[in-house]
């Protein structure tokens, strides 16, 4: 074992930092509560009103994405976790202490990324699978259910966790670029919520082209078992989102490397 510092030691340090502040713990709790709580609320509501659901709606009903509806809210929680992982270092000034301990900015970014990706991926996958199974249990007997034995169902639940993880990384990348929590959260929310609303004002033919590229539409595509006509297929959607995140992250790491701390 060499005494040289490596990504492993700075990653352990970032792990200590991540779990020793309330904001990340609270962020994770909010994320879990939103995904499971809202998932439960929505599935219970669907079950209790199933008898009055129209035949058309019954036909297009997707037990998978409905049980994962909580993720629509939870995506903001994971985004904020990603943003704060770096923006809080700038707001508190602790980035200077951090960089004095780990002067390689590439290594610092990698360590933060490893901690963020690993923790959010594990939590997201667990939470999404629980939300799915909880939803099916609530539906069972009244509303049609799906099983993880089906390939597309397994894929959707798995990709839901990956979607949330990618959004957390996207938040982190925004944090590297903008450095300020408020600015990052505004941009993040705008891209997920406001952008689709703006697109609605565009001509229909434009909408058909643009909508599927919206991050939230990519999420819907990744989480649905049947690819809706206007959206990308699940794997293509994953690829497009991954490209967004990779480009933003590269810009962020480049700026971290170049700018004064």
């Amino acid at each position, binding site marked *: 074992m060499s*005494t*040289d*510092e490596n990504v492993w*030691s*700075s990653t*352990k*340090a*970032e792990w*200590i*930092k991540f779990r*020793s*502040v*309330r*904001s990340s713990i609270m962020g994770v709790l909010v994320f879990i509560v939103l995904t499971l709580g809202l998932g439960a609320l929505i599935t219970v509501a669907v079950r209790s009103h199933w008898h009055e659901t129209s035949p058309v709606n019954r036909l297009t009903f997707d037990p998978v994405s409905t049980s994962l509806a909580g993720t629509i809210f939870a995506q903001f929680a994971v985004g904020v976790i990603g943003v704060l992982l770096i923006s*809080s*270092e700038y707001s*508190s*000034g*602790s*980035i*200077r*202490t951090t*960089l*004095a*301990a*780990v*002067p*390689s900015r590439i290594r610092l970014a990698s360590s933060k990324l490893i901690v963020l990706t690993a923790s959010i991926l594990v939590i997201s996958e667990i939470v999404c699978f629980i939300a799915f199974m909880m939803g099916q249990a609530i539906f069972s007997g009244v509303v049609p259910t799906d099983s993880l034995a089906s390939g597309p169902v397994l894929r959707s639940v798995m990709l839901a966790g990956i979607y949330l993880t990618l959004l957390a990384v996207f938040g982190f990348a925004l944090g590297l670029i903008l450095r300020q929590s408020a600015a990052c959260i505004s941009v993040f929310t705008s891209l997920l919520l406001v952008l689709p609303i703006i697109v609605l004002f565009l001509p229909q033919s434009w909408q058909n082209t643009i909508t599927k590229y919206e991050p939230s539409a990519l999420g819907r595509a990744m989480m649905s078992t049947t690819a809706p006509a206007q959206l990308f297929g699940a794997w293509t959607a994953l690829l497009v989102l991954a490209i967004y995140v990779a480009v933003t992250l590269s810009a962020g790491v480049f700026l971290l490397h*170049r700018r*004064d*701390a």
Partner: protein
Amino acid sequence: MGATLTSVLTTLMLKIDHLSKRYNDTLAVDDLDFDVKPGVVTGFLGPNGSGKSTTMRVILGLDHPTKGRATINGKKYAEIKSPLREVGALLDAKAVHPGRSARNHLRALAVSNKIPLARVDEVLEFAGIASVAHKKVGGFSLGMSQRLGIAGALLGDPGVLLFDEPVNGLDPEGIRWIREFFRSLAQEGRTVFVSSHLMSEMAVSADQIIVIGRGRFITQGSVDELTTTAQGTVFVRSSDPSGLAALIAHDDGVVLQNTESGLTIGALTSDQIGTLAHSAGITIFELTPQRASLEDVFMNLTAESVEYGSARPEMMHREH
């Protein structure tokens, strides 16, 4: 160590090599070039905004230099494998996440540089904040934060220590503690570099002083050297003040004050003034050299840096 002590000490050095740093239109540091040697406390003195913190930030690799470089033991900061084991720094005591406890803050620092965790408790104890180690840093007073920063700087038992305005916020007991602490670090052969805008603080805590103003090097030397080489003034009472004043002006002296009681003269020694007066037949009633205080020296030096934008050659007193 023993026989190799000298060679170890000469390599344990902080070197500022023709360093310049420009932020947009502001040249914060302008061609600074000096060495900070081990075994003594070196003060880094300049008015607020003179580029001390910028220099410190460049040393730590936080800001990229526009020109030149800063090296520690021959290496740029970013090239040091375990920086906390070679350099301890306290730049801004409040640069800590307010929601993290002091111990967790130090633990993360220790782990990142493979420093044993037992060391965390040692430095907490040493800095006198062991009893509040589990408390959130956000609730710390500035003095407690300074102590936490000192604990962080000592974590890796480094040979080079940098402190930016460390006495700010400390109570008198803390100031006294930190002065003795700097001295003991230097006595152990470490390089100790302490910035301050307070002349009086440097006069008691530093052995060597480097003075900068407006980002430029002004002078360097021991406290004694600075006060003796800096031109003191001479107070003269004589039988013909106006005649003497004319002679002095003719001989490159400067009449700083001409009052009823007498002349205050700069740039000439009392010997030179006495000789001048004697040759003109002027009777001297009083001839008193007034030694500049370190405060005066500092004010003069930094005032000149503002006035001329550079140091006067005779003020340059560098050691090599």
